[in-house]
């Protein structure tokens, strides 16, 4: 049961500055690191792993200062994007690698067999990573990381390019590590599903600066920026001045209540254009995107793009046709402002 504390951690590389980042990880806690490309997510992981020079601040593992310890002495296992599986070793010998280094019996060790069984890899043990599916490769990376007996798991984009079923499997595996092994995890992700289902807290990075750090609830209620708004599931995100408060129409009606700043809006339901009601707005369909929960319509209302959900079973409109929608009951949150509400 290990706790970690990053204090005022910062670095500078080729003109890019990251930090200071302060983060305490309790035993078994999972923190998702979110941010746009280039925000410094991977750099943060690499600093903690020992691959990026730390300009100032410290990394403590329980009572030990490991700020300048070499990567192999930190107890933090780093899984890079692409997983870093060794192509010249079989699955079994990939998983056995950390044990071989410690002189722990290598591929024949019972611990290796247990890990192969636990992650459903026993039948693949003699195959090489390049011949496996991406889901299988993720499980190998996970089993190998656990074989090292990590005190912290640092994983850059765990869900990578997995298909739906492989994602479910990996999420379950990561959840089991959290529940059973109580290993703290710092995960970089672009994937809301992963962050929502696995992370206890979220850390937002923006251009190298640490922003929001906390549970997801407040983030949904008041996303600090358009990126965070999209990430927590608002599909209609408008920066300040996107028609809000300056023109009539649906954004104008929202601006009356939430102010002229940026707005994060959920997905209104699309109805027939003839539907009646005082607070109805008309939109012109630009694109139809089929999905498991019915079609999503990319439409334009009052010269502003809006995404609408078409209930399953409804007739699908064509491009250029009109639909109507209401904002009543749709979640709305001001970006960077007060708390959210419903329109």
């Amino acid at each position, binding site marked *: 049961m290990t706790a970690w504390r990053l204090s005022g951690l910062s670095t500078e590389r080729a003109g890019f500055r990251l930090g200071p980042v302060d983060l305490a990880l309790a035993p078994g806690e999972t923190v998702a690191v979110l941010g746009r490309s280039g925000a410094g997510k991977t750099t943060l992981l690499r600093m903690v792993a020992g691959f990026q020079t730390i300009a100032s601040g410290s990394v403590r593992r329980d009572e030990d200062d490991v700020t300048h310890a070499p990567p*192999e002495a930190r107890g933090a296992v780093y899984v890079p994007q692409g997983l*870093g599986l*060794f*192509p*010249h070793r079989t699955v079994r010998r990939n998983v056995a690698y*950390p044990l071989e280094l*410690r002189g722990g019996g290598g591929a024949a060790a019972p611990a290796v067999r247990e890990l192969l069984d636990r992650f459903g890899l026993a039948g693949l043990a003699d195959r*090489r990573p390049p011949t496996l599916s991406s889901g299988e490769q993720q499980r190998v990376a996970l089993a190998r990381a656990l074989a*090292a007996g990590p005190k912290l798991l640092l994983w850059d984009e765990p869900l990578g390019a997995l298909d739906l079923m492989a994602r479910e499997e990996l999420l379950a595996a990561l959840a089991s590590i959290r529940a059973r092994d109580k290993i703290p995890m710092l995960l970089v992700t672009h994937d809301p599903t992963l962050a929502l289902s696995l992370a206890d807290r979220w850390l937002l990075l923006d251009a190298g600066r640490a922003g929001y750090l906390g549970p997801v609830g407040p983030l949904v209620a008041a996303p600090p920026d358009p990126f965070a708004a999209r990430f927590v599931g608002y599909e209609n995100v408008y920066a300040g001045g996107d028609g809000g408060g300056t023109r009539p129409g649906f954004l104008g009606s929202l601006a009356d209540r939430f102010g002229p700043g940026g707005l994060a809006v959920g997905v209104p339901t699309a109805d027939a254009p003839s539907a009646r009601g005082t607070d109805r707005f008309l939109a012109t369909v630009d694109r139809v995107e089929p999905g498991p929960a019915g079609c999503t319509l990319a439409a334009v209302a009052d010269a502003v793009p809006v995404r609408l959900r078409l209930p399953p079973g409804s007739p699908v409109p064509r491009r250029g046709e009109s639909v109507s929608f209401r904002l009543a009951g749709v979640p709305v949150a001001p970006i960077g402002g007060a708390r959210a509400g419903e329109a």
Partner: protein
Amino acid sequence: MSGAAQAAARGLRLVASGSLLALFVVPIVALALYPPLDTVLAEAADPAVRASVAFTLLASGIALAVTLLLGVPLGHLLARRKFPGRSVVEAAVALPVVVPHLIAGLAILLAFAPQSPLGALAVRLGVPVFATVWGVVLVMVYVSAPYTVLASELAFRAVDDRLLETARSLGASPTAATRTIALPLALRGIVAGALLSWARAVSEIGGLLIVAYTVYPSGPYAGPVTSPISVYIYTVYQISLAQAAAISVVFVLVAFALFVLVRLVERAGGLPWRAGALPL
């Protein structure tokens, strides 16, 4: 591109490739056909020829071992480290490739002549250079090592940094990560470079004409007084073209047999660079 233009391009490619291949093969065929078979057999049985071939294989084998021992770490250094004076090191590695080998032989002779400080030291250490197997090894290493260094550098550079970082993160020291991950993954490239180096070493003549035209028994070589095979063939050529061609055929067959053997072992998975088989 129209069908006719495509056909013309294909024809051009065929002619270009065919011409070069013919250039490679035709002279060897001419060489093989020139000496009568009984002359080839007689030369193959001649103890002097056998001594020269055996000596060349011994010296080139030692040179290859030295080349690998010194060249692979240098290739690794060039691939993985940034350090001041790196371009000077790169230029030094290229030096033996650009300096004509006769001149290289002269330079080595002057550097290691018994009266020079280095030569005196070599004599004191029991590895005199002039007219010994050590001189032959020195010249062979000088002319052939750059190929191993450059091939190793490329091979190490091709190893994904993320694999090495992952290994470190899983508990490997820098040395262990190199030994268990970088080296096995680079081995194919290193072996390809080593084969080139060996081929270059056995074909060396320029430097050897100066440093070790005649070789006396010393160190690991206990055979009769002889010459490296290229020097030996050159000497015989001045007397008899047929004999020189016959000895050449004998040596080409030996070298080719060795090359085929290495390839066969590799194909059968018997060499460690078959991925994963390396017991590291």
